[in-house]
């Protein structure tokens, strides 16, 4: 058993590693991605990482599979598009609209969570599919708010602290910082009472109950967090591409986000981030095989679920465990040898 001090030291080390990794990542991308197109791919991957986090919160921590991410993503994107283009009356700046998304979707996601989480497990999953189908039909048909099949174009250029984010290069550092900060928040949730309560709901509901966890409300909270993260991702997407249309928010695209989180490792925040990158960037690298790419994803998912349901992060974890076990054995063997010598 180790004590408090040790954990503080480890936290500091972790932060150091993270900082180095983020800086290295920044320079790596800046040097590798020379064209605006590749930069766009990276930017979108960073936005998707928010949705992958949301899957990680709800599925990884809480054990509930939800497809509703795209509904909220669409909601966030259309809210921002409406506010910034003045379709609702006043015209707000993109940053203000983005900040408005957060409280609005805390309320919306909370209410929807209250309704849908009356159901358990598979039923809940079904209900979220229903939600996605409904929101898609509404986004796709109701012209006054969602532009119908044409979508909404003409979202103005975003300005932060007086700097205009003109192109995908300008956006990259902003999105990177955002993705890291949100990732840290999610990671923090994992290690606080909320994260542990969610883990208890996921692994053993009865145990959770006798440990004083209000399973229903805890899950509703997790659903709310996931909803807000998705809505934020939607808003960012609208700001980045300056165009929103309903066909981004289909059931099919919601499976993509779940795959991202599963690929990286649904139990791990870093895994979710990496998963978003792999799913978004790999197709660009393998564009020669475009016809087979979807098939490749399908097979990858099945193999992943069979051999490593905890994704890439799961592999790293089990390797680490093996390594530690080996070390332990070595130490034990050495100790045994030492005592033997002592006896002699």
């Amino acid at each position, binding site marked *: 058993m180790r004590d408090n001090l040790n954990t503080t030291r480890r936290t500091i080390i972790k932060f150091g590693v993270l900082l180095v990794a983020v800086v290295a990542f920044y320079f790596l991308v800046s040097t590798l991605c020379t064209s605006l197109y590749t930069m766009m791919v990276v930017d979108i991957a960073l936005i998707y990482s928010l949705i992958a986090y949301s899957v990680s919160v709800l599925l990884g921590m809480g054990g509930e599979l939800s497809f509703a991410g795209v509904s909220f993503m669409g909601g966030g994107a259309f809210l921002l598009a409406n506010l910034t283009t003045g379709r609702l009356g006043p015209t707000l700046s993109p940053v203000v609209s983005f900040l408005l998304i957060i409280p609005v979707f805390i309320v919306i996601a909370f209410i929807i969570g209250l309704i849908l989480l009356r159901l358990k497990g*598979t039923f809940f999953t079904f209900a979220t599919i229903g939600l996605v189908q409904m929101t898609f039909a509404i986004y*796709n048909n109701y012209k006054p708010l969602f532009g119908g099949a044409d979508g909404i174009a003409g979202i103005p250029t975003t300005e932060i602290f007086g700097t205009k984010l003109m192109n995908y290069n300008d956006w990259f550092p902003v999105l990177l910082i955002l993705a890291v900060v949100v990732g840290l928040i999610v990671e923090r949730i994992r290690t606080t009472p909320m994260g542990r309560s969610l883990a208890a709901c996921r692994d053993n509901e009865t145990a959770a109950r006798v440990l004083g966890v209000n399973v229903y409300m805890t899950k509703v909270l997790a659903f709310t967090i996931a909803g807000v993260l998705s809505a934020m991702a939607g808003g960012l997407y609208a700001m980045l591409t300056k165009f929103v249309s309903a066909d981004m928010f289909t059931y099919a695209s919601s499976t993509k986000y779940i795959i991202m989180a599963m690929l990286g490792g649904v139990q791990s925040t870093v895994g979710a981030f990496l998963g978003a990158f792999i799913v978004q960037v790999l197709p660009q690298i393998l564009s020669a095989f475009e016809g087979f790419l979807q098939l490749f994803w399908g097979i990858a998912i099945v193999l992943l679920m069979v051999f490593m349901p905890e994704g890439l992060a799961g592999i790293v974890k089990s390797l680490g465990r093996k390594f530690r076990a080996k070390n332990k054995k070595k130490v034990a063997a050495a100790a045994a040898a030492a005592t033997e010598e002592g006896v002699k």
Partner: protein
Amino acid sequence: MSPSLFLSLLVNGVAMGMVYALLGMGLILLVRAVGILNFAQGDLMMFGAYICACLLLDFELPLYLLIPIAFIWFALLGVIFMFTIYWPLRKATYSQATIIATMGASIILQEVAKIIWGSQPRSMPHLVLNSEGDPAVLQIGSASLQWQYLIIIAVGALIIFLITQLFEKLYVGKMMQAACQDSYAANLLGVPSILTICATYIIVAIVCGICGYLVAPVFMVRSTLGTLQLRAFAGVVIGGFGSIKGAVIGCLLVGIVESFSTMAFSGYKDVTVFLLLIIFLVFRPTGLFKGKIGDKA
């Protein structure tokens, strides 16, 4: 609304409801048997439709040959599906893993279909044609009903009847379900659970395949045919999991609501269907008929 319009909408709705019911019944059989929600159900149907289209259009087989050969392919599909998507995952510690694997299977089926048969939709002739080769219609008063829909209803009802007889009346079916639900006890009693589970998968795949054959003339054979399963999901939840009867009624309801709402507000028919679903979920979370078996997934 004129009576003839009402009648044709009703027949349309019931026919589509029958299709959803067939898919939904398969879903329930699988949930009962292995506790898994199959997100590739619609894609099994899609694949079945392609198999039939291939046999009918490319090999030009007559119906009496088409049916047995198609059945063999469906069964094979079911077996392959079980041994790749279910069997390796049956002891997965992560309960969502199996469900997500079926999502992967859904993608695989779609892509394989595209690679084998191309991405162009194929049209299939209706089962009953008039002398000019157009879809035959049945005239009742001023209402003209397509025979294809009537056949869907008849065949659907027959299959549902047979399956419920098998699983709820006959000893073999009951034993199969018991074996699937408690493989340990079943193995002790000498019923190999692998066989019963395999049989369930074969039955489900065949039902899906027939379904595909029936809807192919209506929707054309294309790789996105699988999205019909979403309505089957809705119907199953409305009916309440665990009971075939509930699922069938729920699916029929979905089909009818969908058909009539097409009339009223075409773009929003999905909204009405899924709003119905969510209303049911909120006010009657157990569905129309309370399921006998709890949620295992």
